[in-house]
């Protein structure tokens, strides 16, 4: 090949790389591994990881262990989906395009909104993008953020909004664990409320929306546990202007926190302020229905520094898994799964109460709640030694949330026996 292009050597092709910059030594890396050795290396490296499969797990806090039907992996592994690019060339990307159109529709149905984008990185950046969007719509700079927003999501929100001069203010939680929206300032850009919130409480999104609108602000709902959308009145129905969150519950493995899939939906009137990809319906030259990326003048590759966001990828493969999962579980199945999650948490809460452990918040919950456990640290250690992951200690997230408080999540993946054993150990 070198001869055919008239190059005397490979180095002759690098004429524009100054000799001073050429690496003289090889990269210092471990020796290459063949497939057998590679799988052995990784299997051995992660062998000591305790997983949600290796023992009972009651971990939630923004990442949820749910059932994934076998067909999700089988279909999402198809190379035509997995190895395709962003669907710029629509004629040979109709599979991805129709799938994302379906994803957008499903997100609208779940959130009660009119338009949804083709997904964002994760729930945390979705909240950040929603806040930036609200600031553009209202031309205001104060963001009122519920203290019930996932603490990591709040940190991401701060990182994203600091540079463009937005200020974060906190709306406190009341004694029941819900956000107190009484004091929304008159110049707020947005009221941001997570429901169910980080402590598990199902929020009064209708009240949050009213408070936001009274101040001329947008109401943003954030959802970390997307399965709750199948059962709870939707953010759209309750008057929110933007509904965003994390869709990991719908068929995405926990994978140490990623890749997940953020979603962002809103009213039609705000569509031109949406960040990210949007897929729209059109026709081809023969009049057949087809799908294409649209309203791209919002985006960085056209508008550059004036774009609504710098986002370039959506989470195509994750959106695919979500779409397949929702199609397989279906209308009745998703309602049923959501009801099972409520049944599990109801059972667990009653068992904790019977065992005289305090449930500090009275607000209704979906599948996650806080329990006060005297001597928590010691008990966590003991349960850990038994291979149980009993929940997330709130002490990890700082003082105001309490020393002895444990955030417990029960999903359809937990059994009654596991819950009974957990209650017994924590009460002991």
């Amino acid at each position, binding site marked *: 090949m070198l001869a*055919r292009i008239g190059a005397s050597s490979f180095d002759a092709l*690098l004429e*524009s790389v100054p000799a*001073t*910059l050429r690496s003289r030594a090889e*990269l210092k*890396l471990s020796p*290459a591994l063949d497939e057998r050795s590679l799988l052995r290396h990784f*299997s051995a490296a*992660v062998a000591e*990881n305790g997983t949600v499969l290796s023992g009972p797990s009651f*971990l*939630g806090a*923004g990442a949820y262990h749910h059932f994934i039907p076998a067909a999700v992996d089988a279909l999402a592994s198809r190379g*035509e989906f997995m*190895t395709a690019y*962003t669907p710029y*060339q*629509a*004629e040979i990307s*109709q599979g*991805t395009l*129709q*799938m994302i159109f*379906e994803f957008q529709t499903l997100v609208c149905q779940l959130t009660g909104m009119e*338009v949804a984008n083709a997904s964002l*990185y994760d*729930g945390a950046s979705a909240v950040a993008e929603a806040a930036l969007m609200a600031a553009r719509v209202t031309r205001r700079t104060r963001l009122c953020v519920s203290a019930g927003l*996932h603490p*990591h999501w709040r*940190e*991401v929100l701060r990182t*994203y909004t*600091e*540079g463009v001069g937005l200020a974060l203010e906190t709306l406190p939680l009341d004694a029941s664990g819900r956000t107190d929206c009484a004091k929304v300032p008159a110049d707020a850009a947005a009221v941001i409320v997570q429901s169910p919130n980080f402590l598990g409480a199902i929020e009064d999104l209708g009240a949050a929306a009213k408070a936001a609108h009274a101040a001329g602000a947008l109401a943003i709902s954030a959802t970390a546990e997307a399965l709750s959308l199948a*059962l*709870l*009145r939707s953010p759209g129905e309750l008057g929110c202007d933007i509904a965003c969150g994390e869709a990991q519950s719908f068929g995405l493995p926990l*994978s*140490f*926190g*990623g890749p997940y899939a953020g979603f962002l939906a809103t009213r039609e009137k705000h569509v031109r302020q949406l960040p990210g990809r949007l897929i*729209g319906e*059109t026709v081809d030259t023969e009049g057949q229905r087809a799908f294409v990326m649209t309203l791209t003048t919002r985006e*960085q590759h056209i*508008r550059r*520094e*004036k774009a609504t966001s710098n986002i*370039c*990828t959506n989470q195509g493969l*994750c959106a695919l898994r979500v779409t*397949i999962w929702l*199609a*397989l579980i279906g209308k009745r199945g998703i*309602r049923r799964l959501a*009801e099972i999650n*409520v*049944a599990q948490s109801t*059972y667990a809460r009653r068992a904790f109460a019977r065992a005289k452990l305090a449930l500090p918040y009275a607000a209704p919950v979906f599948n996650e709640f806080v329990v006060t456990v005297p001597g928590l640290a010691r008990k966590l250690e003991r349960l850990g030694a038994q291979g149980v992951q009993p929940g997330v200690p709130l002490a990890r997230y700082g003082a105001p949330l309490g020393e002895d408080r444990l955030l417990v999540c029960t999903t*359809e993946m937990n059994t009654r026996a596991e819950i009974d054993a957990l209650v017994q150990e924590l009460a002991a």
Partner: protein
Amino acid sequence: MSTAGRTGLVFHEPLLFESSRPGRRGVPIDDPDVPPVDAARELGPELVRDDIPDFPELAELDVVRHFTRLSQWNYGIDSGFFPLGSCTMKYNPKVNESVARLPGIAAVHPASDESRLQGVLALASELETVLAEISGLDRVTLQPAAGAQGEFVGVRMITAYHRARGDAKRTRVLIPDTAHGTNPASAALNGLEVVEVKSGADGVVHPEALAALADERTAALMLTNPNTLGLFETHVEKLAEVVHAAGGLVYLDGANMNALLGIAKPGHMGVDVMHFNLHKTFSTPHGGGGPGSGPVAVRNILAPYLPTPVIRGEGGRYRLDEDFPHSIGRVHAWYGNAGIWLRALAYIRTLGAAGLAEVSARAILNANYILDSLRDVYDVPHQKRVMHECVLTDRRQNEHGVTTADIAKRLMDYGYHPPTIYFPLVVAGALMIEPTECESQETLDGFIEAMRAIAREAETEPGLVTGAPERPIVRRLDEVRAARKPRLRWTRERA
């Protein structure tokens, strides 16, 4: 015509919502072993919604056929040659999928106690060390979920660095006219002003042009090297000197790192901070537009500003350290797209140092081979050797009424994915071709032959090209209609 493309049996497939039939069910879900509850009574009727109207009701086989058929309308790297410039559409080895699916990775909850995360943290730490070595920089974070988020993080850190030095007036980012659109968008997301740097007639940035713009307001230069014309920025050391002398820092957009593995290290070029696109250089699947992974590497001067948490390894134990007072803060709920960055580590471990060096060498050879084999029929903006990608234009074909878009669509009929088109913006009618190292000479020859055939058709039968494509499931789309009356979801009323 002799082509790689054939029309196989593909199926019409309605939307999920159109195939839905009341009462049909996909996977069964058993009763729980806890007592059932009436959710409306338990939570209060005011909190509970009705059934979701028009939500899909399908059997498992319906769903399997639906997505199988949709997949057949797609073109992936697994389908054929995918020379999409600056996107590095290389083969995604299947063993990396097996790695990501190991239960010790896929079933790890991110909020697990650190004692249970030692394995995955050790692998993360290993990858950070490897990426530091490849970049010639000191520290790495795996947290950014994509290249654009990596850019945001890098620029945010640069801002934090200047502010910590009491140098708050640095509000401008210098960006060459060949840059990806994400660069200016990431600067704007940080509240900074974008100043465009014109590249020279030879396609690269000249120190004099940069010196005229660099001053006490300069926060950074954002450079892509090799640039989007496929040219190595020959003056990069001098460019870095100019920016550093003005008090600014140098950011490298690592989108084109596939040209540099084992050949040159950004750290030696004067780069202070860069992002990697693991889904480009390190073979993780593009997935139809994500998920990606955009680790950021920095020189020690920027290390205090890394996003929190950072991984610390001490005495063989690893922990996620959040006590990091100068950090720009978190950018991801957890520690980035672990399922993706672990695939990248698997790729690097498969190739080793010699393998990675061969990646770039072959990628560069393949790009020059294509360029040399087509420059007699397509116009070329610059006569130099290229790195990992090359740019052609449609100037000659324009004489026959054929444009870059037409050539791209006609390539589909020949069985190839089109190159990146109309980018970089500085070249009119650009066709930007990145073959990657993975393709054989036979595959390249087939593509070259198709490009030459299209050039002939443009002269003799231009209607074949302007009317393309004819083989995909749909013909050319009406994009204006899509944007004028946007239909962004299915509804029963519109059906």
